[in-house]
């Protein structure tokens, strides 16, 4: 599925330069749902993370 929203900055993924966001995401979990831009509830554990959108469900670092 193509992301509509950048999961780091929450702006439109197709607009602007998100190179810095992609670089930062290597050391950050996602914060915004790429489908609806809602801020997600993120849990970071020592060996992984999960991010939950109330509308679009949960994504995890291990896929």
């Amino acid at each position, binding site marked *: 599925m193509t992301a509509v929203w950048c999961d780091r*900055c*929450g702006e439109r993924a197709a607009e602007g330069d998100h190179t810095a966001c992609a670089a930062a995401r*290597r*050391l*950050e*979990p996602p*914060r*915004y749902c790429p489908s609806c831009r809602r*801020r*997600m*509830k*993120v*849990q*970071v*554990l*020592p*060996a*992984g*993370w999960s991010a939950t959108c109330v509308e679009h469900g949960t994504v995890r670092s291990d896929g």
Partner: protein
Amino acid sequence: MPEILDLARTQVLEHGIGLDEAGVAAVLRLPDEHVPDALQIAHEVRMRWCGPEVEVEGIVSLKTGGCPEDCHFCSQSGLFTSPVRSVWLDIPSLVEAAKQTAATGATEFCIVAAVRGPDERLMKQMREGVAAIRAEVDIQVAASLGMLSQAQVDELVEMGVHRYNHNLETSRSYFPNVVTTHSWEERWDTLRMVRDSGMEVCCGGILGLGETVEQRAEFAAQLAELDPHEVPLNFLNPRPGTPLGDRPVVEGKDALRAIAAFRLAMPRTILRYAGGREITLGDLGTRDGLLGGINAVIVGNYLTTLGRPASADLALLDDLKMPVKALSATL
């Protein structure tokens, strides 16, 4: 060799007496070509007064976001437009985090909450969480829950929390530029209570908040006066939406100067790599710091950001022939 490094060799290495504020400032001002010399002496100091073991720790956020305080570096303050949402970790996930940490060989697991100080809900979660971890996981439990009352200090001791983290964050003179909702002295009061309770004191801070070299030296001297069991050294990782979100990261050479300087101020403390080292120092700098005074690491992820894989740090320690401190050595 600069005079300050000769002094470090005789005073700190041979006698175990840390540099004072002026000495720390002199190390922080060393020209680039002498940084390797400072790191070498700091490493020798660490080996002589602490030994070769490296203490490994994992951390987890029990309560994330929604904090009423305004620490300008923190993405968990509810007063800023940070994307971090408020969320609580449940007990099974907390125990899972402790298991993930123990699986790395770590001896320390620190439970952290983004609060001014714990309320009854948080203390209840701590009671249940610490008991569950102690029943299932062979690891030392530490906590970082903000400012405490004496009754809360006593309760944490009763739970079996052996170390308490409460960072002073920066020097006393610069603190009001970073936090306005409470004072440096309030933090100091909690640290004094923790010390008096018999819990180990863990207290460090963040470099790169805009402090001057003099204030960085002042901070090292104030930590040395506190004489904590452990000093976690963070480097600012500027977070979107925070007042310090646009600050530059600390230059790698300055970070290494600081590592050497803090070690030379506190020859016997556990000096721990904490957040921000990945962006400030990268892989090569991480190695340089471990050979320049650092003798502890946080492995894996942090509270709201991600770290290097624990396996990468453990492989580096193996490569450097630095043994991971065993649990039996901490009891």
